[in-house]
């Protein structure tokens, strides 16, 4: 739970290791036109399907732009020939009628979906659906969900997830590197000298037990900075400043198990994500096991910011209740179908004390290069040493880059 969720197509380093270590991957559905957008104080609290919102925005923007073109407002910008092409494009793209208007019709329903879908035999005729009135749509602010959550490059289809869960990647690394790993080693001190690095640690299951020590020529350290800044380590003063310059963001997740997949059975939502302005922020529907009978698990809450700080202060049972009590206002089936739940707040994970390192433009300028530089015999690695914060890809690329630079330095020393 307290970990990554989905893999964008350009995260080639993660996929490289998945392929190498035999981690099976399957599609992750980020964008589902039948998932919802929800605003507490709009549409009387009723969620609206993403595909309809998207079609309607495209339609209204096309209608307005073609109106501007037709009234000559853009004559200084667009020549006559381009004008015709632009109008033709807007008419097709926005699904406008002969008067360049976006209206309820069989044509627009071919894009936003029907009220009654075409059937067979003597079933009722298809019935077009009604576009959301433009003012209601604009006032709801749902437009922003499209460009904030769906069209960004790290959310574009195709996305992937390991079969059986993200933990399978960690399992594969553990299997491949088993001989190199000491489990439950809580580092208490990192000390470098002219010839190497000594790391002191204790058994985290028995912290008062005997101190243990390991020594090597070099140290690649991937302890999160939130913890590393509290460990005794002899690095240069600029490196210490850089380590202390990266605050850790907050985030929470709640998983909810239900007795049946009502989002599929009742609402025809197979995978994808519903976004809301309620404290739960989003509901993600499973991208696997679709059409199966029986229980299913939703990601019932996942977010950042002020709502997250509040989630941090709650106990696991309370977090589940928050996800249920708000979430039922999107899916009233929650109350009847709930079976069990679980939750995580990253700031309460003892070994990470937060979700990921936050960088700003100014902190990057001031500290990033120093943080990533080799400090005598120690070099740091992890998502905090990357331009891809919070993603596994950033951690892997940072590790590969650190290893390469260390290798070059070691070769020079002979």
């Amino acid at each position, binding site marked *: 739970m307290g970990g990554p969720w989905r893999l964008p197509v350009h995260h080639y380093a993660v996929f490289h290791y998945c392929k190498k270590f035999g981690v099976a991957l399957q599609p992750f559905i980020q964008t589902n036109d039948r998932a919802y957008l929800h605003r*507490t104080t709009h*549409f009387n*609290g*009723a969620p*609206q*399907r993403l595909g*309809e919102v998207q079609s309607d925005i495209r339609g209204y923007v096309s209608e307005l732009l073609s109106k501007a073109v037709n009234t000559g407002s853009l004559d200084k910008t667009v020549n006559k020939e381009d004008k015709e092409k632009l109008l033709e494009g807007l008419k097709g793209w926005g699904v406008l009628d002969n008067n360049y208007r976006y209206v309820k019709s069989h044509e627009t329903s071919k894009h936003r979906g*029907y*009220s009654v*879908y075409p059937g067979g035999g*003597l*079933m*009722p*005729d298809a019935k077009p*659906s*009604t576009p959301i009135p433009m003012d*209601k749509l604009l006032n709801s602010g749902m437009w922003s969900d499209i460009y*904030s959550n769906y069209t960004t490059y790290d959310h574009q289809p195709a996305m992937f997830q390991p079969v059986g869960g993200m933990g399978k990647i960690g399992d594969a690394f553990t299997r491949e590197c088993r001989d190199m790993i000491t489990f439950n080693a*809580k580092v208490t001190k990192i000390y470098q000298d002219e010839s190497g690095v000594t790391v002191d640690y204790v058994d*985290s299951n028995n912290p008062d037990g005997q101190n243990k020590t390991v020594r090597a020529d070099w140290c690649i350290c991937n302890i999160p900075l939130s*913890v590393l800044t*509290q460990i005794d380590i002899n690095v240069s003063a600029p490196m210490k400043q850089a380590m*202390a310059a*990266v*605050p*850790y*963001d*907050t*985030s929470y997740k709640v998983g909810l198990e239900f007795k049946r997949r009502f989002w599929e059975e*009742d*609402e*025809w939502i197979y995978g994808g994500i519903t976004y809301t*302005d*309620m*404290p739960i922020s989003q509901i993600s529907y499973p991208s696997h096991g679709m059409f199966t009978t029986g229980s299913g698990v939703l990601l019932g809450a996942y977010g*950042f*910011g*002020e709502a997250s*700080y*509040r989630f*941090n*202060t709650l106990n696991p049972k309370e977090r589940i209740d*928050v996800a249920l*009590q708000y979430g039922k*206002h999107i*899916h*009233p*089936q929650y109350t009847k179908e709930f079976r069990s739940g679980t939750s995580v707040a990253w700031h*309460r994970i*003892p*070994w990470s*004390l*937060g979700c*990921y390192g*936050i*960088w*700003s433009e*100014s902190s990057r300028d001031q500290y990033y290069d120093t943080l990533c530089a080799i400090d005598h015999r120690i070099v740091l690695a992890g998502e905090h040493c990357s331009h891809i*914060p*919070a993603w596994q890809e950033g951690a892997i690329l940072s590790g590969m880059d650190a290893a390469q630079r260390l290798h070059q330095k070691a070769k020079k020393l002979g």
Partner: protein
Amino acid sequence: MGMIKPNLLAVVMILGIGSTVALSGCSQSTNANAVTLARQQQTTQMVFDNQASRNNGAWGAVYMTKEALRSPKANIVDFSSLPKMVEDASLQKWLAKFEGSADGKKGFITTNGKKLYNDSCAGCHMQDGKGAKGAGYYPPLADNSKMQSKYYIISVVMNGLRGMPSFQSMMNDEQIAAVTQYVHSDLNKFTDTVTAANVAQLRHDFPPGSDPSE
């Protein structure tokens, strides 16, 4: 006639059961009603059905009769049993905790120092400021001599410290003053008065870190 729904009238026309006669007969005998119908139709078009989006296309023609499909009696999801958020008894506790959420707001609104502490600081420094210890630690804020300087507390809340993020964009001067007062006087026994002006003194333009994942 006034009771018949507009869409049923349309079906009568399609089936063509003496449609012209029937229709002209209708309008002749109940002319006033016909006007009402037209008005009704207009009104229907103007009132947007908020639940339509959920219901659209998910009625499942495979499960339903033609009649039911033409004029469904219920929504696919029974939201009628659902109270309004502000009247939802099981939500009251959380509407208080997540203040403003009934209005779709997410930020900190209160100026009550204890509530601000319990909604933010307590996530790490724990309830009553007792701190926590794991691989790293969260220092206790209660009985902590460093909390004697209100300016120190304000500065940490404003700028963050090592792993701790900055709250300057999430809380206004009055709120930072209130939470500082709570830490200074309630979790410790120090007696300085913390004002919004004290906080304003320490505000600066340093841009807080942006969140790349949102």
